[in-house]
Protein backbone atom coordinates (compact mmCIF):
# COMPACT_ATOMS: atom_id res chain seq x y z
CA UNK A 1 0.00 0.00 0.00
CA UNK A 2 2.75 2.45 0.88
CA UNK A 3 4.44 1.61 -2.44
CA UNK A 4 1.22 2.43 -4.29
CA UNK A 5 0.86 5.75 -2.44
CA UNK A 6 4.49 6.65 -3.18
CA UNK A 7 3.97 5.73 -6.83
CA UNK A 8 0.79 7.78 -7.23
CA UNK A 9 1.84 10.91 -5.33
CA UNK A 10 5.36 10.95 -6.81
CA UNK A 11 3.92 10.37 -10.27
CA UNK A 12 1.43 13.21 -9.86
CA UNK A 13 4.19 15.65 -8.85
CA UNK A 14 6.06 14.67 -12.03
CA UNK A 15 2.87 15.19 -14.05
CA UNK A 16 2.69 18.77 -12.78
CA UNK A 17 6.28 19.24 -13.95
CA UNK A 18 5.49 17.75 -17.36
CA UNK A 19 2.48 20.04 -17.79
CA UNK A 20 4.63 23.07 -16.90
CA UNK A 21 7.17 21.98 -19.53
CA UNK A 22 4.62 21.29 -22.30
CA UNK A 23 2.07 24.08 -21.78
CA UNK A 24 4.15 26.89 -20.29
CA UNK A 25 7.31 25.96 -22.28
CA UNK A 26 9.49 26.04 -19.17
CA UNK A 27 12.99 24.54 -19.34
CA UNK A 28 13.89 21.71 -16.94
CA UNK A 29 16.02 24.13 -14.90
CA UNK A 30 13.03 26.45 -14.48
CA UNK A 31 10.80 23.55 -13.46
CA UNK A 32 13.18 22.23 -10.80
CA UNK A 33 13.89 25.73 -9.46
CA UNK A 34 10.20 26.52 -9.08
CA UNK A 35 9.57 23.13 -7.48
CA UNK A 36 12.21 23.79 -4.83
CA UNK A 37 10.64 27.17 -4.06
CA UNK A 38 7.21 25.51 -3.94
CA UNK A 39 8.54 22.92 -1.46
CA UNK A 40 9.91 25.63 0.83
CA UNK A 41 6.64 27.58 0.65
CA UNK A 42 4.50 24.50 1.36
CA UNK A 43 6.71 23.65 4.32
CA UNK A 44 6.37 27.25 5.53
CA UNK A 45 2.69 26.47 6.09
CA UNK A 46 3.47 23.05 7.55
CA UNK A 47 1.80 21.23 4.66
CA UNK A 48 4.76 19.28 3.31
CA UNK A 49 5.23 17.26 6.50
CA UNK A 50 1.67 16.02 6.15
CA UNK A 51 2.34 15.01 2.57
CA UNK A 52 5.44 13.06 3.63
CA UNK A 53 3.45 11.33 6.36
CA UNK A 54 0.85 10.40 3.78
CA UNK A 55 3.02 9.40 0.82
CA UNK A 56 6.46 8.56 2.24
CA UNK A 57 9.03 8.44 -0.55
CA UNK A 58 6.42 9.82 -2.96
CA UNK A 59 7.05 13.14 -1.22
CA UNK A 60 10.71 12.80 -0.18
CA UNK A 61 12.12 11.74 -3.58
CA UNK A 62 10.84 14.65 -5.79
CA UNK A 63 13.00 17.76 -5.70
CA UNK A 64 10.30 19.65 -3.75
CA UNK A 65 11.57 17.87 -0.62
CA UNK A 66 14.88 19.71 -1.08
CA UNK A 67 13.18 23.02 -0.30
CA UNK A 68 11.32 21.38 2.55
CA UNK A 69 14.43 20.05 4.26
CA UNK A 70 16.35 23.31 3.71
CA UNK A 71 13.65 25.10 5.68
CA UNK A 72 13.42 22.36 8.29
CA UNK A 73 17.14 22.56 9.07
CA UNK A 74 16.93 26.35 9.27
CA UNK A 75 13.97 26.30 11.65
CA UNK A 76 15.52 23.64 13.91
CA UNK A 77 18.66 25.73 14.37
CA UNK A 78 16.63 28.95 14.71
CA UNK A 79 14.95 27.51 17.77
CA UNK A 80 18.29 27.38 19.55
CA UNK A 81 20.15 30.41 18.19
CA UNK A 82 17.44 32.77 17.03
CA UNK A 83 17.82 34.68 13.79
CA UNK A 84 21.44 33.67 13.17
CA UNK A 85 20.38 30.04 13.38
CA UNK A 86 18.50 30.31 10.09
CA UNK A 87 21.79 30.83 8.28
CA UNK A 88 23.55 28.15 10.34
CA UNK A 89 21.00 25.43 9.84
CA UNK A 90 19.89 25.90 6.27
CA UNK A 91 22.05 23.10 4.81
CA UNK A 92 22.03 20.89 7.88
CA UNK A 93 19.51 18.32 6.70
CA UNK A 94 20.27 18.48 2.97
CA UNK A 95 23.97 17.98 3.55
CA UNK A 96 23.67 14.27 2.67
CA UNK A 97 22.06 15.05 -0.68
CA UNK A 98 24.46 17.82 -1.68
CA UNK A 99 27.66 16.18 -0.49
CA UNK A 100 26.77 12.86 -2.11
CA UNK A 101 25.87 14.66 -5.36
CA UNK A 102 29.29 16.37 -5.32
CA UNK A 103 31.16 13.18 -4.38
CA UNK A 104 29.46 10.74 -6.75
CA UNK A 105 29.23 13.30 -9.55
CA UNK A 106 32.96 13.93 -9.29
CA UNK A 107 33.92 10.25 -9.08
CA UNK A 108 31.73 9.29 -12.03
CA UNK A 109 33.05 12.19 -14.10
CA UNK A 110 36.64 11.08 -13.37
CA UNK A 111 36.08 7.37 -14.05
CA UNK A 112 33.70 7.41 -17.03
CA UNK A 113 34.13 8.68 -20.54
CA UNK A 114 31.53 11.12 -21.91
CA UNK A 115 29.02 9.41 -24.19
CA UNK A 116 27.30 10.76 -27.28
Amino acid at each position, binding site marked *: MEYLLAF*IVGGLICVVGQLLMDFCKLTPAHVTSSFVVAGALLDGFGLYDQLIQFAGAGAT*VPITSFGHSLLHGAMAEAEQHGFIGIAMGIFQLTSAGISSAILFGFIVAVLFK*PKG
Partner: protein
Amino acid sequence: MSKQKLTPEQQEYKEKIKPLQPKPPYLLNVAKAFLVGGLICAIGQGISNFYLTFFNFNEQTVGNPTVATLILIAALLTGFGVYDKIGQFAGAGSIVPVTGFANAVTSAALEHKSEGLVLGVATNLFKLAGAVIVFGAVSAYIVGMLRYLFQMWF
Protein backbone atom coordinates in the same frame (compact mmCIF):
# COMPACT_ATOMS: atom_id res chain seq x y z
CA MET B 1 8.83 34.47 -25.99
CA SER B 2 11.01 37.51 -26.65
CA LYS B 3 9.84 40.83 -25.29
CA GLN B 4 10.86 42.81 -28.39
CA LYS B 5 8.09 44.46 -30.38
CA LEU B 6 7.41 42.51 -33.57
CA THR B 7 6.78 44.19 -36.86
CA PRO B 8 3.40 43.46 -38.53
CA GLU B 9 5.17 41.19 -41.01
CA GLN B 10 6.75 39.19 -38.23
CA GLN B 11 3.43 38.83 -36.43
CA GLU B 12 1.76 37.71 -39.62
CA TYR B 13 4.46 35.12 -40.13
CA LYS B 14 4.03 33.89 -36.56
CA GLU B 15 0.31 33.39 -37.10
CA LYS B 16 0.97 31.65 -40.38
CA ILE B 17 3.38 29.04 -39.00
CA LYS B 18 1.32 28.33 -35.88
CA PRO B 19 -0.73 25.47 -37.39
CA LEU B 20 2.43 24.01 -38.94
CA GLN B 21 4.37 23.72 -35.68
CA PRO B 22 4.29 20.22 -34.19
CA LYS B 23 2.19 19.95 -31.04
CA PRO B 24 3.70 17.93 -28.22
CA PRO B 25 1.63 14.79 -27.52
CA TYR B 26 0.35 16.11 -24.19
CA LEU B 27 -1.45 13.03 -22.92
CA LEU B 28 1.30 10.59 -23.85
CA ASN B 29 3.97 12.81 -22.26
CA VAL B 30 1.93 13.10 -19.06
CA ALA B 31 1.39 9.33 -18.91
CA LYS B 32 5.12 8.64 -19.40
CA ALA B 33 6.10 11.20 -16.76
CA PHE B 34 3.59 9.72 -14.31
CA LEU B 35 4.80 6.16 -14.88
CA VAL B 36 8.54 6.78 -14.66
CA GLY B 37 8.31 9.40 -11.89
CA GLY B 38 6.04 7.15 -9.87
CA LEU B 39 8.33 4.19 -10.43
CA ILE B 40 11.38 6.14 -9.18
CA CYS B 41 9.44 7.15 -6.07
CA ALA B 42 8.34 3.54 -5.50
CA ILE B 43 11.98 2.44 -5.73
CA GLY B 44 12.77 5.21 -3.24
CA GLN B 45 10.11 3.77 -0.94
CA GLY B 46 11.83 0.39 -1.16
CA ILE B 47 15.20 1.95 -0.24
CA SER B 48 13.51 3.84 2.63
CA ASN B 49 12.06 0.59 3.96
CA PHE B 50 15.47 -1.06 3.73
CA TYR B 51 17.05 1.70 5.86
CA LEU B 52 14.12 1.65 8.30
CA THR B 53 14.46 -2.10 8.88
CA PHE B 54 18.22 -2.60 8.99
CA PHE B 55 19.56 0.74 10.25
CA ASN B 56 18.72 3.11 13.06
CA PHE B 57 16.53 5.59 11.20
CA ASN B 58 12.97 6.77 11.80
CA GLU B 59 10.27 8.09 9.49
CA GLN B 60 11.55 11.66 9.82
CA THR B 61 15.25 11.01 9.12
CA VAL B 62 15.03 8.25 6.53
CA GLY B 63 14.70 10.73 3.66
CA ASN B 64 18.41 11.60 3.88
CA PRO B 65 20.02 8.19 3.17
CA THR B 66 17.30 7.43 0.62
CA VAL B 67 18.12 10.55 -1.35
CA ALA B 68 21.86 9.85 -1.14
CA THR B 69 21.38 6.28 -2.43
CA LEU B 70 19.21 7.45 -5.32
CA ILE B 71 21.85 10.05 -6.19
CA LEU B 72 24.52 7.34 -6.29
CA ILE B 73 22.38 5.17 -8.58
CA ALA B 74 21.54 8.10 -10.87
CA ALA B 75 25.18 9.23 -11.09
CA LEU B 76 26.24 5.71 -12.13
CA LEU B 77 23.41 5.45 -14.67
CA THR B 78 24.48 8.81 -16.10
CA GLY B 79 28.05 7.53 -16.37
CA PHE B 80 26.87 4.47 -18.31
CA GLY B 81 24.75 6.70 -20.56
CA VAL B 82 21.50 5.03 -19.48
CA TYR B 83 19.91 7.98 -17.69
CA ASP B 84 19.84 10.12 -20.83
CA LYS B 85 17.80 7.43 -22.55
CA ILE B 86 15.38 7.32 -19.62
CA GLY B 87 15.18 11.11 -19.79
CA GLN B 88 14.32 11.11 -23.47
CA PHE B 89 11.46 8.75 -22.76
CA ALA B 90 10.14 10.18 -19.51
CA GLY B 91 10.59 13.95 -19.71
CA ALA B 92 9.67 15.48 -16.36
CA GLY B 93 9.38 12.00 -14.85
CA SER B 94 13.17 11.82 -14.81
CA ILE B 95 13.80 15.52 -14.05
CA VAL B 96 11.56 16.19 -11.06
CA PRO B 97 12.78 13.34 -8.79
CA VAL B 98 16.09 13.94 -7.02
CA THR B 99 17.74 11.59 -9.54
CA GLY B 100 17.34 14.37 -12.11
CA PHE B 101 19.42 16.63 -9.86
CA ALA B 102 22.18 13.99 -9.74
CA ASN B 103 21.98 13.58 -13.52
CA ALA B 104 22.36 17.34 -14.02
CA VAL B 105 25.43 17.42 -11.76
CA THR B 106 27.11 14.38 -13.29
CA SER B 107 26.38 15.12 -16.94
CA ALA B 108 27.63 18.71 -16.67
CA ALA B 109 30.86 17.46 -15.09
CA LEU B 110 31.29 14.68 -17.67
CA GLU B 111 30.68 17.00 -20.58
CA HIS B 112 33.53 19.31 -19.58
CA LYS B 113 35.95 16.55 -18.62
CA SER B 114 38.23 17.32 -21.55
CA GLU B 115 39.00 20.74 -20.03
CA GLY B 116 40.72 19.15 -17.04
CA LEU B 117 39.85 18.17 -13.50
CA VAL B 118 39.88 21.64 -11.95
CA LEU B 119 38.63 23.92 -14.72
CA GLY B 120 36.49 21.28 -16.40
CA VAL B 121 34.95 18.84 -13.93
CA ALA B 122 35.04 20.81 -10.68
CA THR B 123 34.09 24.19 -12.12
CA ASN B 124 31.15 22.88 -14.12
CA LEU B 125 29.78 20.45 -11.52
CA PHE B 126 26.97 22.80 -10.51
CA LYS B 127 26.56 24.51 -13.86
CA LEU B 128 23.04 23.11 -14.38
CA ALA B 129 22.07 22.14 -10.84
CA GLY B 130 23.29 25.34 -9.18
CA ALA B 131 19.99 27.08 -9.89
CA VAL B 132 18.19 24.57 -7.67
CA ILE B 133 20.52 25.22 -4.75
CA VAL B 134 20.43 29.01 -5.18
CA PHE B 135 16.64 29.20 -5.38
CA GLY B 136 16.24 26.63 -2.61
CA ALA B 137 18.53 28.47 -0.21
CA VAL B 138 17.09 31.92 -0.99
CA SER B 139 13.47 30.83 -0.67
CA ALA B 140 14.14 28.78 2.46
CA TYR B 141 15.91 31.79 3.99
CA ILE B 142 13.01 34.14 3.26
CA VAL B 143 10.31 31.70 4.35
CA GLY B 144 12.36 30.85 7.45
CA MET B 145 12.65 34.54 8.39
CA LEU B 146 8.91 35.07 7.91
CA ARG B 147 8.04 32.02 9.96
CA TYR B 148 10.43 33.03 12.71
CA LEU B 149 8.93 36.53 12.90
CA PHE B 150 5.47 35.00 12.89
CA GLN B 151 6.35 32.75 15.79
CA MET B 152 7.82 35.64 17.78
CA TRP B 153 4.78 37.85 17.46
CA PHE B 154 1.96 35.36 17.83
